[in-house]
């Protein structure tokens, strides 16, 4: 197989993505999980630079790494496993969990929409930004319903996830938020799967609450956002 043949197969792009992520994860480990050394953030920056230098478009890259993207759905569902293990604690803290998720999600959506309104941003971009704290597969569906662009919503969801995973635990520690319930729920509500994956490194209990926060945010927003948009416009 020649190098030209290799460049048209998923093998090259999958290998490249895995290799870059492995290096980024090692950098993150050596920097003791410094916020700026977030593996996803480093990998995305590196891959964007490489694709830009090689003059390859995103569609070509994405078509060849579909396998990684396909696994996102099952992996999100698998986050329910630590949640099931912690079901007793979840049951005990039902009201704080629901209240925290509702207020946190509302604060995020209202802040983003207010900033867009003040800046005079169009409805499509505002709608796409309003779904930024929802897990990417769900955010795409909701964005389509409320007049946003699904692919743009996915990008905003991942950017929010990257930012939350990078700086969220640091900010929570600075604000003296130490309990697993508060840290996990805040991370899951803000930065969905990426935040859950990050906080799962701290403890399984926090990861379970993050998974719950992510799921409840997706569920609540899927019901409330289309209703709010219908009322507003």
């Amino acid at each position: 197989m020649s190098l030209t043949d290799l460049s048209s197969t998923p093998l090259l792009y999958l290998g490249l993505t895995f290799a870059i992520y492995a290096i980024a994860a090692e950098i993150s480990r050596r920097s003791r999980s410094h916020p700026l050394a977030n593996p996803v953030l480093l990998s995305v920056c590196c891959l964007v630079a490489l694709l830009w230098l090689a003059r390859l478009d995103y569609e070509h890259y994405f078509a060849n790494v579909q396998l990684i993207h396909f696994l996102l759905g099952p992996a999100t569902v698998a986050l329910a496993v630590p949640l099931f293990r912690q079901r007793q604690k979840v049951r005990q803290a039902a009201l704080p969990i629901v209240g925290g998720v509702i207020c946190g999600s509302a604060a995020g959506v209202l802040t983003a929409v207010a900033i867009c309104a003040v800046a005079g941003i169009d409805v499509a971009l505002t709608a796409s930004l309003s779904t930024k704290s929802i897990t990417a597969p769900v955010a795409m569906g909701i964005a389509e319903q409320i007049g946003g662009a699904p692919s743009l919503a996915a990008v905003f969801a991942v950017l929010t996830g990257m930012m939350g995973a990078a700086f969220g635990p640091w900010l929570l520690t600075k604000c003296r938020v130490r309990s697993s319930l508060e840290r996990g729920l805040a991370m899951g509500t803000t930065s969905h799967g990426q935040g859950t994956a990050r906080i799962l490194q701290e403890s399984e209990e926090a990861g379970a609450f993050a998974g719950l926060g992510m799921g409840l945010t997706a569920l609540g927003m899927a019901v409330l956002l289309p209703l709010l948009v219908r009322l507003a416009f």
Partner: protein
Amino acid sequence: MAILFVPVGVGAMSYSSLFASAWPVIVLAIVVGSVATLLTAAFVTRFLTAWTASPVTVVEERQPASR
């Protein structure tokens, strides 16, 4: 699991013109919105946990006296 978000994240390059024109608003909305969500969720959860916590009254069941 985090690696699964890399392909979608790279998709940001498709919107380079949009990011070039509206990046201050996008960055502000993502940063301020995320901080608002993070801290509101954490502190509302803390408040409600404290609010719902009440002294537990333990009622012991009387065991029938063994003969």
